[in-house]
C-alpha cells in the first residue's frame, strides 16, 4: 500500500512539474505583459517603465526558475493587476470555487448515484428510461445556455432564486445545478452499468443464498463494489468541474477562481493566470491521487496486494 502511494505520488509530482512548465511557457507568449499591465490609456513611456520595473526583458528560463522556486514556497508573486500577492487573491476566491465544486459534485452524486442504482435494479423501467433521457439531455445541453435559461425562469419569471451573488446558500442553488448536471450523466451511466454488472455477479447470488435481504444485498454487497469506479470518476469530474467553473461563475457573478482566471487572461495578469492554471491542475492531480488512495482503501484487491 505504501509502495503504491509513493509511486502515485511521484507520478503526481512529475505531472505537476510538466504542467507548470507548459503553462508558464504558454502564457509567456500571451502578448506584451507590460502593455497589459499599463492599461488602455497608458502611453509608450508608461509601458517601457513597467517593462523595466518587472524585469520582463530577462530570458524566459530565468523567469521560470525564479517563479517555480518561489511557487514551491507558496509565493506566486504579485498580481500585475491587483498589486496584491497572488496567493492571497486566489485563496480568497478559491473558497467560492471550492464550495461550488463540492456542491456541484455532491449534487451530481446525490442525484446520479440513486438514479443509477434504481435504473440498474429496474432495467427498462420508466425510471430507467427517465434516467437515460436525463443523461442524454445532460450531455447535449450547453451549460451556458442552461444557466441563462435558469435565470430567465427562476429569477425573472418566478422570482424564486437570486440570479447572482454568494451571500447565502440560496445563491448557490442555481450555480450548483448548472455545474453539477454536466457531471451527472457520466456518473449515472457508470453507476448503472456497475450495478448491473455487480448485480449479475456470483457473489450477489451468494449473498442472497445466505438469506440477506434486498437492502443488504443492494447496499452492502452490490453498491460497495459498484461504487469503486464511480469514486475515480467523481474525482476526475471534480477536477474538471473546478477548471470548468469559468462559465458558471461568469453567468452567476460568483467571484471565484474560475472567473478570476478568465478575467486575468483578458488582463494579461501573468502571475495570476500561471498560478491558477497550476492550482487547477494541482486540484486535478490531488483529486485523482486521493481517489486512487480511496479506491485502494475501498478495493482490497489493491489495498492488500
Amino acid at each position, binding site marked *: 500500500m505504501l509502495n503504491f502511494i509513493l509511486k502515485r505520488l511521484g507520478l503526481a509530482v512529475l505531472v505537476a512539474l510538466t504542467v507548470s512548465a507548459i503553462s508558464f511557457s504558454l502564457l509567456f507568449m500571451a502578448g506584451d505583459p507590460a502593455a497589459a499591465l499599463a492599461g488602455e490609456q497608458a502611453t509608450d513611456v508608461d509601458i517601457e517603465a513597467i517593462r523595466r520595473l518587472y524585469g520582463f526583458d530577462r530570458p524566459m528560463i530565468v523567469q521560470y526558475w525564479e517563479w517555480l522556486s518561489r511557487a514551491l514556497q507558496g509565493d506566486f508573486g504579485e498580481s500585475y493587476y491587483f498589486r496584491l500577492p497572488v496567493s492571497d487573491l486566489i485563496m480568497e476566491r478559491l473558497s467560492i470555487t471550492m464550495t461550488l465544486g463540492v456542491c456541484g459534485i455532491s449534487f451530481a452524486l446525490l442525484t446520479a448515484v440513486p438514479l443509477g442504482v434504481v435504473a440498474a435494479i429496474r432495467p427498462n423501467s420508466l425510471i430507467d428510461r427517465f434516467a437515460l433521457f436525463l443523461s442524454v439531455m445532460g450531455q447535449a445541453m450547453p451549460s451556458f445556455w442552461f444557466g441563462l435559461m435558469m435565470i430567465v425562469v427562476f429569477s425573472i419569471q418566478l422570482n424564486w432564486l437570486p440570479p447572482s451573488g454568494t451571500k447565502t446558500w440560496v445563491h448557490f442553488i442555481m450555480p450548483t445545478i448548472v455545474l453539477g448536471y454536466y457531471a451527472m450523466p457520466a456518473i449515472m451511466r457508470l453507476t448503472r452499468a456497475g450495478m448491473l454488472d455487480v448485480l449479475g455477479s456470483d*457473489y450477489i447470488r451468494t449473498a442472497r443464498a445466505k438469506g440477506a435481504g434486498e437492502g443488504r444485498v443492494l447496499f452492502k454487497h452490490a453498491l460497495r463494489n459498484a461504487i469503486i469506479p464511480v469514486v475515480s470518476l467523481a474525482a476526475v469530474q471534480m477536477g474538471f468541474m473546478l477548471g470548468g467553473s469559468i462559465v458558471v461563475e461568469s453567468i452567476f457573478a460568483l467571484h471565484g477562481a474560475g472567473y478570476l482566471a478568465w478575467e486575468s487572461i483578458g488582463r494579461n495578469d501573468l502571475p495570476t493566470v500561471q498560478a491558477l492554471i497550476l492550482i487547477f491542475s494541482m486540484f486535478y492531480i490531488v483529486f485523482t491521487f486521493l481517489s486512487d488512495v480511496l479506491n485502494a482503501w475501498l478495493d482490497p484487491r489493491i489495498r*492488500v496486494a
Partner: protein
Amino acid sequence: MSEPVLSVRNLRLDIPTGAGTLHAVRGIDFDLERGETLCIVGESGSGKSLTSLAIMDLLSKRIERKADKLVFDGTDLTKAGAKKMRALRGDRMAMIFQEPMTSLNPAYTIGDQLMEALLLHRKVGKAEARRRAVELLEKVGITGAERRLSQYPHQLSGGLRQRVMIAMALMCEPELIIADEPTTALDVTIQAQILRLLVDLTREMNVAMILITHDLGVVARVADKVAVMYAGELVETGTAKKVFDAPMHPYTRGLLRCIPVPGKTERGSELGSIPGIVPSLVGKVSGCVFRTRCEEATEACRGEIPYRESAEGRHNFRCVHETGRRAGVEEPA
C-alpha cells in the same frame, strides 16, 4: 421412513421470451430424505442449475416457477413469501456455487462473509460468530483459520475459496445443501479433495445434499440417489446402484456409454457419442424430448410419455417403451 426433507412434485419453470414461452423445466418430481445425497446429472443447459435455484427461490424474476408440491422441511415453498424464504436461505438450506473465484464478495473479508449468515439468522454476538467461523474453517481443512478471517478472497487460491464456501454453507447447520458443480472450476488435482470433504461433512452432520455434476464417476461414488436430466425433464431417477447397473432410459444408457465409469466400463471399449440436436423448448412441448437423438425412437414417441416405475421399484424413467427399448430390438452387442 420419516417425512422427506424436500419433496418436489411437477415443478415447472417458464421463461417468457420474444418468440414465446420457453418451458425450461417441466414436471420435476423427486423426494430427498434427511442426510441423503441426490446427484443430478445432465448436459449443460438441461435445467439442473435452474432446478436448484428454483428450490432456493433465487431465480431471476423473469422466470415463472410453478409446482404442485414444493415442501421443504415442512414448509410449503410455493406459498412462502420473500421474507420467509430469506429466513430459510442460509439457515435451513444453503448453496455452494460452481465458481469459487467469483462467488465471494471481493470487498469483504472472509470472516465478514462467513459470519454474515450466522449473524443474520441467529441471535449470536460477533465473538460467538467468529468462534464458529474459525471452527468451521478448521473443519474444512484450512490452516491458520484465525489469520484467514481477516484476509480477502483475492488472497486465497480457488481451492481454499471453495473450502470457504463450504464452511459458509455449513455455518447455520442447514438441513439441505445444494452444491452446483462445486468442483468444475477447480484444478483437477484438488477436485477430489474438495468433493470428499463435502461428502464427508454432509454425512457427518447428517445434511441432505443435492449435488449437481457432470461427473458420472463422482456420482457413482457418492450418490444415494441419481436423477438424470435432459432438456428440462427428469428422464430417469433411482438409487445410484439401480441407475448405474440397469439404466432404463435410452438417454441414460447413451450417457453411460459415452463415459468410462471405473469398474463399469471395460478398458478398450469405444467411447460413444449421441448425435442430433436438442429440440427447441419454446412453445408447446409434446412427446419425448429425446426422440430427435434417440435410436429407439418410434412414431409413438410424439405422443404422451408415461413416467414408468421399473420392475424392481424405486427406479423411475420416462419412456413410451416399457423397457426403455423398442420392441423386438436386441440389445446391441
